[in-house]
């Protein structure tokens, strides 16, 4: 088994009397896609902030053995740069100018935005902006992507498209991903492991594994079962019997 790219060891975070995380243990291995779901305000984004190094834990340790890149909920593209220039910023580690230009074109083509290289972000739709942001993140040399509700500001149809798009992009440009989302269906369609968090202070209540290969449809049996199970865990699905049936075949830890 590969060594973890990211490891939280009894990580604790408190802001004065407010305890956000309590002794969280978490490992993410190379190539994994891990989704974090949980009640609003439980500390999901805080976990990403700790993972990226933006916050430091009050106690415990967080080890990263890979370069990290965040993809944010709100627009992280620089609005004063064109889409092409934004993607090129992600290629700062490439010294050769011609190679940078080649890779910029390659990543823009990957997200189907080649005709929009000279457009500014405000001239694109929300979905196109998210695709550009993904291109910039993938263009970097970071092997760990931390995604904080990246599609939450999109409309439902655009969200569905972006899920499929992300699954396709990861096929072509494999990365290790930690995704924070409040969309249980999105987590079940994309992740290898869904970590269900408790109320604050967050701890992992349960880990749901999904074996089916991506892309997964929302109607796939595995996805439906996982969604029902997670909703029940979060107290949003009261039909225990349905949940018990749905749980059959799911690997739960």
């Amino acid at each position, binding site marked *: 088994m590969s060594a973890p790219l990211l490891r939280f060891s009894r990580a604790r975070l408190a802001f004065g009397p407010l305890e956000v995380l309590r002794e969280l243990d978490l490992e993410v291995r190379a190539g994994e896609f891990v989704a974090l779901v949980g009640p609003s305000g439980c500390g999901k984004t805080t976990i990403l902030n700790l993972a990226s190094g933006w916050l430091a834990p009050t106690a415990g340790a967080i080890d990263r053995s890979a370069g990290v890149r965040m993809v*944010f909920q709100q627009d*992280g593209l*620089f*609005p*004063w740069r064109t889409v092409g220039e934004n993607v090129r910023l992600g290629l700062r580690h490439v010294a050769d100018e011609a190679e940078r230009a080649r890779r910029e074109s390659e990543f823009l083509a990957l997200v189907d935005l080649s005709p929009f290289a000279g457009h*500014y972000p405000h001239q694109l739709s929300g979905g196109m902006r998210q695709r550009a942001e993904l291109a910039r993140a993938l263009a970097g040399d970071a092997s760990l992507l931390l995604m904080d509700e990246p599609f939450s500001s999109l409309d439902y149809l655009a969200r569905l498209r972006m899920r499929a798009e992300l699954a396709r992009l990861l096929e072509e440009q494999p990365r290790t991903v930690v995704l924070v989302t409040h969309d249980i269906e999105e987590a079940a369609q994309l992740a290898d492991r869904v970590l269900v968090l408790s109320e604050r202070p967050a701890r992992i209540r349960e880990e749901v594994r999904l074996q089916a290969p991506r892309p997964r449809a929302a109607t796939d049996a595995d996805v439906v079962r996982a969604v029902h199970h997670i909703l029940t865990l979060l107290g949003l699905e009261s039909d225990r019997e349905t949940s018990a049936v749905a749980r059959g075949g799911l690997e739960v830890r």
Partner: protein
Amino acid sequence: MEATHRSQAPPARRHARRGLWIGLVGPVVLVAAWAVLAAARLFPESLFPSPLAVARGLAIEATSGRLWDDAVASLFRVTTGFLLSVALGVPCGLLLGRSPWAREAFLPLVNFFRSLSPLAWIPFAILWLGIGDPPAIFLIFMAAFFPVVLSTAAAVASIPSVYFRVARDLGLAGGELLWQVTLPAIAPHVITTLRVTAGLSWLVVVAAEMIAGRDGLGFAVWDARNGLRIDLLAANMVVIGIIGVALDRVLVGLTRIPSVRWGYER
């Protein structure tokens, strides 16, 4: 049908042409009302000159060369004072915007000086710097510097933190962070402030030249008043207004730079 389509200018050009015509409506109405009032002789000609008298005054000032000399003198003072205030005000604003310590230490002082009318400095300006360019430049600086500092500081403080997080991920720091993130992020806001402070500077230079000048459009207004040449006074006022509008149009041009359009189109 096809011929009709061919004969039409592109929509953008049509719109610009229509805008130009509509923009002339206000000045034409104003001059017409002015001409009617002057023709009605409600006030003596020596107190209320007609548009024709002012146009003649304008021609006299222009052909004598004085109008150009005065306009150049005023523009030099405004440009120097304004550029000085921007060159020093933007860095100070950056410091105040980024450093809570600097904000706490200096913001009350900036607000204090901002509340002082620049015209209150006129006696000091004359005592310290005499007559001519230096006092006018000093007064323009005092008028523009503090608004530029405050506005830049506010713009920096309101940059979304997500930009700094992305910059950190991308390895941008120090000078690169300043040139590639901070300055472009505040550019639209700063350009708007420049428009406001350029207008303010133009107001101040006229006032400063009235009292502490030997030339310039403000001095020309004062000189015309002393010589009871109300036509020349009004002619200089017209020129001051036209240059003020032209200055603003130049700065509006900055808002058309593609990399700052995002700040005006959200």
